[in-house]
């Protein structure tokens, strides 16, 4: 049993970061919000309508899911992977239309990876794969995008790049929810943060209010150090 008395709201145009120690129920909450598992109690709503009232395709046209970067079994080209994002826009038997192909190439262009489109996805670097998965989510034309640890396994530069892309997606009107193990990413990219421990909400609100040293120490049960840049006043956290 995880997830008692949780209430999460995500609005379009904002970035929400979901933080919590391993086993706190982040993934379960994420999958419930995606409609992949049914809530044990309570409900998940999009536009005031329960998630279970949507068909799989109708749900996918509203929420896109960006899984953790993985290596699929088969070496699909980048273009094929992004075209799969158009699945919910066609029927069971339909081939991608010219509109689908246009949406896919637009999404590739949006992340500056048009040059990769003929490459096998399996041969890309982790950072490139993450951008391809983001492009696929965008090609899905959803209102909300849910990302599972989008910065895991990425190098420092690519972490920053992905965070900037999340902000840009929100600026374009998407509601963005992501999980992360790094409070600094939440601080930098998110508007609000949702802290979860043992299936319960520890704190929720604007990142500046929620991401404080005492809150993080309570969240992870470990000492935390705060660094402040005297010039800009920006803060960052280090595990103590």
């Amino acid at each position, binding site marked *: 049993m995880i997830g008692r008395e949780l209430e999460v709201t995500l609005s379009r145009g904002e970035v929400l970061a979901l933080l919590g120690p391993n086993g706190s129920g982040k993934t379960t909450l994420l999958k419930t919000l995606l409609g992949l598992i049914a809530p044990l109690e309570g409900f998940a709503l999009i536009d005031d309508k329960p998630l279970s009232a949507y068909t799989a395709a109708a749900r996918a046209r509203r929420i896109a899911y960006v*899984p953790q970067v993985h290596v699929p079994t088969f070496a699909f080209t980048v273009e094929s992977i992004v075209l799969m994002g158009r699945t919910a826009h066609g029927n069971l038997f339909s081939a991608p239309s010219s509109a689908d192909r246009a949406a896919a190439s637009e999404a590739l262009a949006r992340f500056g990876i048009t040059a990769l489109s003929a490459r096998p996805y399996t041969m890309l670097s982790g950072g490139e794969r993450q951008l391809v998965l983001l492009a696929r989510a965008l090609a*899905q034309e959803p209102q909300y995008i849910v990302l599972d640890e989008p910065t895991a396994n990425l190098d420092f530069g690519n972490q920053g790049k992905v965070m900037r892309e999340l902000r840009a997606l929100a600026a374009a009107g998407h509601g963005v929810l992501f999980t992360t193990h790094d409070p600094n990413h939440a601080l930098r990219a998110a508007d609000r943060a949702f802290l979860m421990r043992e299936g319960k909400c520890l704190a929720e609100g604007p990142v500046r209010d929620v991401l404080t040293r005492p809150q993080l120490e309570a969240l992870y049960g470990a000492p935390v150090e705060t660094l402040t840049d005297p010039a800009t006043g920006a803060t960052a956290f280090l595990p103590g």
Partner: protein
Amino acid sequence: MTRSALPGLGIATAFIVVGLITAFTVGRYPVSLAELIDVLGAHLSGRPSAAPPAVENVIFLVRGPRVVAAVLIGAALAVAGTAFQGLFRNPLVSPDILGASSGAALGAVLGIFFSLGVVGIESFAFLGGIAAVAAVYCVGSLLRARDPVLVLVLTGVVIGALLGAGVGLVKYLADPYNQLPAMTFWLLGSLASTTASDLVPLAGPVLLGSAVLVALRWRMNVMSLPEEEARALGVSTGPLRIAIVAAATLVTSASVATSGIIGWVGLVVPHLARALVGPDFPRLLPTAALLGGGYLLFIDTLARVAAPVEIPLGILTAVIGTPFFIWLLAGMQRTWS
């Protein structure tokens, strides 16, 4: 999709055309290419042929049904293997992973045991294959698990072993002079006794199942992604998985019922097809069908002419398939993983 599928499809088409010509011309009664073209042309245009009647008999009555059966069965096994490898996200899967072949084998040996006719044995084999997969699917669905695909495969392996024990029992109880050789021969696979009347019960299910798989080709791309990812992309994975398994089982069972057990085709040919055109199902399925049909044509021609007696197909596909598969494993990073 910048890389064109045309060269790969061209190679696959050339392969099956050469296979067809070889299968029709080579054998104990050699037919020249000119005679073949003359007889086929005459048949199509309705004019009388210049070739001796014996040539016409060889082409239409002796080799014709066998060639059509080889093409249909090779294509069917390759398409089913392609579908299963995608569905189970595992390139080492073959069409009999869910017990279709073991079920058909048990059905066939029971048919032989009860001294049913050819039609009875083939019906038993066909229904046995479908019943086995249905049983695997029901048991697999009853076990609630996080990874339904893995549970399905493991259930298939377990029930396949049980069916194998059933085959062993029936063979043990069978009459060792009449029934046991027939069972052994059936289990090794052959097209030697294929006649024109076998083609309708074979072609019907094979074409129907293949049509379903081809119609679902774009969805099958998504089904080869991890379960939750496919669902988040808007695919109802449960019903779609049943449709794909049912279609692949239909073609596999009909094939095995006609020819007996022919392994390796459904495992090796999908790899070849992926090496030619990549993993995209819309182009992979036709390529696999052409290659599979051509491959079994060559194997069957070899089975006819390589030795004074017919060599069982299952033995030839294994002898050719094993080294080939080891070669594939050596270079596997290129085509998958």
